[in-house]
């Protein structure tokens, strides 16, 4: 049964307007950074390697664009079922509510990884003119930032980029879960997405409380730059947020009237 539900959900998420728009945007977005004429004036550096384009793409989109795309898609995945009226129709079949929602949660958890894979490939493609050989400097996703600590081999650079994108994708998972939770609460996609964004903006304001800042969900959006010694802690915190939002969504969904 769960495999049937997962197949359904994968087919559904691919058909969502927000997903198609988001993926198309992520294909084009790296080109802006790779060929931005004012990059030196604004940031004070020149791109010296194609491995730096993925970092620029991620740094410029992780605080707002990518969370926005994930939140909207997650909210739309449930919201369209509510607006189309297919939600009660499917729940009349011998499918338990937790199983049905779990299939959506799994797909939403996988989506950021697919999204960032597309983003990474598009960024690397945009970096082709800069070359992918060894270079002096950093990728922007390692501990030494874009300045680096000397010569970086292509293998090490690719490793930093892949690691950064994996951590970034992981950090976006709880945002998808939060959007689904709010969609369960408000029973519409717009309400779910807007409440998620409002929550993220609110959390970003909470940096004025330094004691709680390391624990905020929005702080984890910088996970891609986490030093090696902190990765386990960051991953655990992200997993905790994801599990908490997912569990709350399931509990509320189980008691909803349709």
């Amino acid at each position, binding site marked *: 049964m769960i495999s*049937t539900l997962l197949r359904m959900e994968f087919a559904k998420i691919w058909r969502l307007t927000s997903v198609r728009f988001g993926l198309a945007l992520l294909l084009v977005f790296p080109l802006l950074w790779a060929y931005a004429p004012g990059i030196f004036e604004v940031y004070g550096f020149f791109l010296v390697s194609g491995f730096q384009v993925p970092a620029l793409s991620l740094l410029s989109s992780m605080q707002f664009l990518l969370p926005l795309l994930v939140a909207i898609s997650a909210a739309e995945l449930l919201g369209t079922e509510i607006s189309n009226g297919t939600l009660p129709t499917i729940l009349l079949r011998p499918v338990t509510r937790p199983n049905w929602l779990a299939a959506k949660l799994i797909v939403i958890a996988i989506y950021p990884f697919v999204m960032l894979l597309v983003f990474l490939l598009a960024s690397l493609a945009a970096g082709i003119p800069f070359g992918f050989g060894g270079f002096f400097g950093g990728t922007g996703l390692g501990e030494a930032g874009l300045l680096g600590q000397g010569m970086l081999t292509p293998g090490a650079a690719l490793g930093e980029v892949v690691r950064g994108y994996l951590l970034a994708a992981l950090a976006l998972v709880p945002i998808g879960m939060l959007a689904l939770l709010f969609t369960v609460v408000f029973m519409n996609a717009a309400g779910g997405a807007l409440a998620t964004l409002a929550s993220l903006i609110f959390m970003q304001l909470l940096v004025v409380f330094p004691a709680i800042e390391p624990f905020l969900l929005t702080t984890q959006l910088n996970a891609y730059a986490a030093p090696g010694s902190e990765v386990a802690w960051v991953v655990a915190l992200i997993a905790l947020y994801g599990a908490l939002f997912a569990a709350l969504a399931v509990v509320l969904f189980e008691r909803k009237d349709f």
Partner: protein
Amino acid sequence: MATPAIASDALTKSYGTRTVVDDFTFRVNPGEVYALVGPNGAGKTTVIRLVAGLAFPTSGEVRILGEDPQQTPSVRRELGAVVEAPAAFYPYLTGRANLRLHADLAGGVERGRIDEVLRLMELHDAADRKVGVYSLGMRQRLGVAAAILTRPKVLILDEPASGMDPLSLHLVHSVLRKSAEEGTAVLLSTHHLDEVVAYCTRVAILEEGVLIDEVNLFDRRERFRMRVTDLSCGVRALEAQPELVTHATIRGTELVFIPRTHEDLGSVSGVLAAAGVGVLEMNRDVFDLRAYYRERVSAERARRTGVAPATNDSGYGGAA
């Protein structure tokens, strides 16, 4: 006694201080068609959703084939339902693909069944078109096709014929009637009183979430009325013959009775003649559900508000 296909006991649903279904108890047995009728906002859709397990009762309970559909989701394998008007499907999938999806979620159906229900609902020509381009009536028919796909023992339908043309309406009602004849218990809400009266077993009239009357249409269809020379004596004579007549009463200036079989009608005349009661005229008692419904709802509103109904011309005098 056999387990009812649908059993609801003291079913109540409230939202805050507003009670939308109040203490509603009913049974639907296999092979019965039970209709919920009532004005808009009477609570019909809420009852349907409570019975289908989509909403949770505030108090009371619902059983489908003896099981709580919330606690035992597997009982929904025996349930077919249409709870949205128009019936809801994925618009980017074809009619056939939507039915295949429903079949997969139900654990599968036998080979050829999807084509069979598409043909039955006269949708085979449109089966490979996306549902997004279906008309309202086609979507409703696809809804009924999905509901009967798994040959369920229980069918629950909320306004299954809403927005349909007369031919589609007739098709849907004939499919429901046939399902009931094959032993399926059917619960439906509807405003189509004329169609309902032709084949429903019982009708529940709801007003403001309260069951104000339950009419046994099976008995109603089998009733006869007579003008006789002596009403009281005629009723006594028929009541003394339970092997011929199951029910005899006086309604206005007529004697109304239900014969055990139509073959007994001749014997009924004989019994009355033997009692010295002359039969002046005998007719089948055509039940006007529309008029009866109007009268019962008006009377209930008058009772609740204390304002007398404007007219009362049905001739039923409030008696079921």
